[in-house]
């Protein structure tokens, strides 16, 4: 791994790909906002209830929004032959996959964090509660993208893989969702945010190897 040039190039390529394919920022933001906005219609408009469940609702919307954008991440690489080229590179395919996931998270995951206070406001969540929540959304969102990336790599050869990706990835979302939601009530003082970070680090350690193995298999 002495030469970082392939990783930088992969990052740049994935950034422009993510920007060009998913209608840029608008699609995931629209999906995130839409999901969050449906909740008052199903649970009633009582301000107190909404303020209480608002942050949890945003967690759910975040998890779902991360899934919608991931379908094409590796599938396109398999179809257009770019995966064949990457697999033959000296640079590890696991690191390339991690780089790509990071780029896609930056384009379609990170903007959701910035949307969170606005949506929180609409649900009546006090602003000071949103600051620790945003940190948690950032860590949790990246965790979702890592596990989602593994699922996307496994499903790269499958047509209409969206549902399969959700099916594979959702069980892996559970720890991040549990500790993420707990951290909302505890803020920065509790242990939950640490457990959430641990879940993220675990994903960071395991997911790249899993993505690499799945992509090698897909290229065969």
């Amino acid at each position: 791994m002495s030469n970082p040039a392939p990783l930088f190039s992969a990052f740049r390529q994935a950034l422009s790909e993510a920007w060009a394919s998913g209608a840029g920022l608008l699609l995931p933001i629209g999906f995130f906002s839409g999901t969050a906005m449906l909740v008052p219609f199903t649970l009633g408009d009582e301000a107190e209830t909404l303020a209480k469940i608002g942050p949890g609702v945003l967690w759910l919307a975040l998890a779902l929004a991360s899934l919608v954008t991931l379908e094409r991440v590796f599938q396109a690489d398999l179809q257009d032959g770019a995966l064949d080229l990457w697999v033959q590179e000296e640079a590890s395919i696991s690191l390339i996959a991690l780089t790509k996931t990071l780029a896609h998270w930056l384009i379609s995951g990170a903007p959701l964090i910035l949307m969170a206070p606005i949506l929180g406001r609409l649900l009546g969540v006090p602003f000071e509660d949103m600051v620790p929540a945003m940190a948690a959304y950032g860590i949790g969102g990246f965790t979702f993208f890592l596990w989602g990336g593994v699922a996307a790599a496994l499903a790269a050869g499958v047509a209409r893989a969206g549902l399969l990706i959700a099916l594979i990835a959702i069980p892996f979302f559970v720890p991040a969702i549990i500790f993420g939601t707990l951290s909302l009530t505890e803020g920065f003082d509790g242990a939950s945010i640490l457990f959430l970070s641990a879940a993220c680090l675990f994903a960071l350690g395991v997911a790249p190897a899993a993505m690499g193995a799945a992509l090698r298999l897909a290229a065969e």
Partner: protein
Amino acid sequence: MSDTRLIHGQSLGAVRGERVLFRDVSVEAKAGDLVLLRGANGTGITTLLRQLAGLSPPQAGEIERSASHHWIGHTNGLKAHETPRTHLQHWAKVWGSEADIDDILKRTSLRRPADVPSRMLSAGQKRRTALGRLKLVSRKLWLLDEPFNALDTDGQAYLAEMIEAHRADGGAVIAALHGAAPVKASSEVAL
């Protein structure tokens, strides 16, 4: 002679499901060689080429490689958002190439569509872009899957010229071909 051998696949075999695709096939390429892999559709020449490239592990036999290679598959490797120029720039960066991209675009007759996203390019233009990668860095061995597909007469002549120049330069080419060959091979492997 063995010191100029760039790749040697010995008694290779492949299985598809329950069926033996091919068995006991040996391929070798020395400097200056053009080896054609020939066979009807479904006989496994693409699989054989992918084994030589290291993309698929051979189910039987061994492959010895002593040179780096270029790969052009039947999919060209272009992303839908990439233009011929950004595609070549991207791989030039990955491979640390100093090659003059404008010159490559000129030689592959891609100057006009150089900045058009590949989803709007014709199959032949995409193929020409992929062939441009061969010029980015010099690698001894070229592995080409149906390289003449989608190319017009000029393109085919240009590629034949490229292949001859590469061989004269001490390189070798292994190409999978179904149809007629516009180039003269030094050896053929029939499946």
